[in-house]
């Protein structure tokens, strides 16, 4: 019976550094066999890093891992798989053009030919695929499956390899609420079968609903461990953030004329799946409208349609009463659209360029012959205003810290005094000081009369900045709140698609 008492896995004193950043500081964690354990924390708290260490994808700089009481050292995922640890990634590790069966077989073919591997994979499918809904078709091409099914294939892959410990990294990030519930059922069934599950997430609702125990990470450290039944979402939120969200402290909005009007906007993605479903909203000058919602509910598509990177299927977007659909990105920017990208290194800036070259990106007043001295001077002024360090215009953009990079991007976009600013996750991956400065600048822009559409996964940020909050769920605007009259529970319910306001 002592075997049952031995934890499925133990992590002790795990340290991991990426350059100057300590992603994991002396983390210790115990997973009880047959339990579902939650690992929570904000974005950047170190959850994914820890999960990847447990899975063997990364090696810790210090610390010990024990599986079933025995110390192990994983040189690669292969070692982890051999030890019975399986990972279900947030971004699926599936080979899209291949079938379900082929994906299951990969790495576990059992022989030079494929016949044995197929038989074994079919057996696993029959034995373990008991998730709610229709059974998986083994010969279906993965690229044709809905996301929930793809995730099931991922889970089955891990199980097929004999995983006793299953790590799931933000599994509901791409699921609808219905699919999420189905997933939870599957997880509980697996736990009852003796599998151990580590659920890495920042969604407190899930944690409360499905886990037995939970560990809270903040800035790379363990700040608390609880049995789920002994705690609640409020306490966890507080532990995650470190302080209870402060009440909003901004001046009331002085509303100007209607600037942005979106009507019945419908967007389908490349695979034909509906991402925005007749969404409508309006933003006036002098106000900040925030879009809250679990990522994957249409936020990115909304931004891309607004900015001009995606063509919507139908609907209308009017800025200062001019129809934007049909205009190029450049034409929209000329009309006063500003954009702080969600992913600054992908869309917001060119990492290989210097800071001053990045400051020129997307600025229409740039003459044919670039004026180096003038541009450098203008940037120096901006760097001073935004407290960017070090204040060197010629420095490589990639060598600035995340917070300074974001400040540079925000400085550029706000410097054009846009009529409408679309800001996606403006303080993601940014230190507290920089975040505060960016928030202040956004409020200043709003007070100057611009309209701001804020898309954020950070509830605290939304509370600080928003005059109105719209909830996007499943591609539709599920409801509207104001921070003064709403509370987190209402917001959470709207975001989960469980209520309407």
């Amino acid at each position: 019976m002592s075997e049952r008492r031995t934890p499925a896995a133990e992590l002790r004193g795990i340290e991991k550094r990426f350059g100057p950043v300590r992603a994991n500081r002396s983390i210790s964690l115990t997973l009880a066999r047959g339990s579902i354990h939650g690992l929570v924390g904000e974005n950047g708290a170190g959850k994914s890093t820890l999960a990847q260490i447990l899975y063997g994808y990364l090696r810790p700089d210090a610390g010990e891992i024990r599986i079933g009481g025995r110390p192990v050292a994983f040189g690669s995922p292969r070692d982890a798989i051999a030890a019975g640890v399986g990972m279900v990634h947030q971004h699926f590790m599936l080979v899209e053009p291949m079938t379900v069966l082929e994906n299951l077989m990969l790495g576990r073919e059992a022989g030079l030919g494929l016949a044995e591997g197929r038989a074994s994979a079919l057996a696993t499918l029959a034995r373990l695929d008991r998730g709610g809904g229709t059974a998986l078709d083994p010969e279906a091409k993965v690229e044709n499956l809905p996301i929930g099914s793809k995730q099931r294939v991922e889970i089955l892959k891990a199980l097929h390899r004999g995983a006793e410990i299953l790590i799931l990294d933000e599994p509901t990030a791409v699921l609808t609420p219905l699919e999420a519930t189905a997933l939870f059922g599957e997880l509980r069934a697996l736990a009852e079968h003796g599998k151990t599950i580590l659920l890495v997430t920042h969604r407190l609702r899930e944690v409360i609903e499905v886990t037995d125990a939970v560990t809270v990470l903040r800035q790379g450290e363990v700040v608390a461990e609880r049995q789920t039944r002994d705690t609640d979402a409020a306490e966890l939120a507080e532990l995650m953030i470190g302080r209870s969200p402060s009440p909003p402290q901004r001046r009331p909005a002085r509303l100007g004329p209607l600037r942005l009007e979106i009507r019945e906007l419908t967007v389908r993605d490349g695979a034909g799946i509906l991402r925005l479903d007749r969404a409508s909203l309006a933003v006036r000058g002098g106000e900040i409208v925030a879009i809250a919602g679990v990522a994957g509910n249409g936020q990115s598509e909304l931004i891309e349609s607004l900015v001009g990177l995606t063509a919507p299927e139908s609907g209308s977007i009017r800025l200062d009463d001019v129809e934007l659909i049909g205009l190029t990105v450049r034409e929209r920017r000329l009309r006063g659209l500003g954009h702080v990208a969600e992913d600054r290194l992908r869309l917001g800036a060119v990492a290989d360029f210097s800071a001053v070259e990045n400051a020129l990106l997307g600025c229409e007043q740039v003459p044919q012959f670039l004026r180096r001295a003038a541009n450098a001077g203008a940037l120096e002024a901006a760097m001073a205003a935004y407290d960017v360090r070090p204040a060197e215009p010629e420095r490589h953009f990639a060598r600035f810290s995340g917070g300074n990079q974001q400040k540079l991007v925000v400085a550029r976009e706000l410097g054009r005094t846009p009529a409408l600013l679309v800001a996606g996750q403006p303080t993601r991956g940014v230190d507290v000081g920089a975040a505060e400065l960016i928030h202040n600048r956004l409020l200043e822009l709003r007070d100057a009369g611009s309209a701001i559409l804020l898309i954020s996964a950070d509830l605290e940020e939304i509370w600080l900045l928003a005059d109105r909050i719209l909830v996007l769920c499943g591609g539709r605007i599920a409801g509207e709140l104001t921070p003064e009259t709403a509370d987190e529970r209402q917001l959470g319910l709207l975001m989960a698609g469980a209520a309407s306001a």
Partner: protein
Amino acid sequence: MSEAGTEFLSILAATLRLATPLVLAALGGLFSERSGVIDIGLEGKMLGSAFAAAAAAAATGSAWMGLLAGVAAAMLLALLHAYAAVSQGGNQVVTGMAINVLVAGLAPVLATAWFHLDGTTPMLPSAARFGALTLPGFASLGVFYRQVISGHNGFVYAAALAVPAAALLLARTRFGLRLRAAGENPQAVETAGVSVSAIRYRALLLTGLLCGLAGAYLSLAAGAGFTRMMTAGRGYLALAALIFGRWRPVPAALACLLFAFADATQARLQGVALPVVGAMPVELVSAIPYVLTLLLLAGFGGAARAPSALGVPYRRDG
């Protein structure tokens, strides 16, 4: 048999002969590209193999030694490509280019140094070459069999067999499954616990083997020794055929046959009026395969979907 008929049969026979190095090289390129490594160095591998095969055959008097040397040379070049592209994460196009240029220079230099002729190897006696094989049933199975099917070099039959072999390897074996996965989503392969580097190295060795056969064919069977630039762009033609065949063994082989057919008819088309086009200037016939491939790339005839991870060096983090 009518004169036109005999003429046609001899064109068919010529097509098979001309297609052989193309098919072998195209299949070679298939394996490397399906695993995710761009290979425009087919030309260089073929040339290197042709030289090594001719040199070894001239030195030892044995065609089989020549074959061995040719294949070894091509595999060595493939390893170089693998090292630069897979282990060093270098630009795969540039590596292929480098190998082509390097071999184009190295082969004549070594040939001159070793054989004291200007950049060529000595003419090989027929003992040091591969001759035609007569298949059983020669006499009885009809003139088509006699003229077209039988009487070819061993390489031709090897190329013909290589096509279904490659298809089977790709679709029905563990190696093939992992190779295809590596070309589409190397991260998925790595997280499944399989090494992408190992797969790509193996794929490139196979490329070397096949290109080696192609090159050896040129100098030991189709020709009688090595001369400068004797591959004459066949490596690029094979690449075009591979793309035209959408990176699949059988369509690629058919494309090779098509291109070879164009080549075989070229000399005989001079002054002949074709339907629609009129009298096609013979110099332009050599451009036909490329124009066809471009048309395909332009989207006529459906999209050509390359392996998703093609050309992107895969690097493990952490």
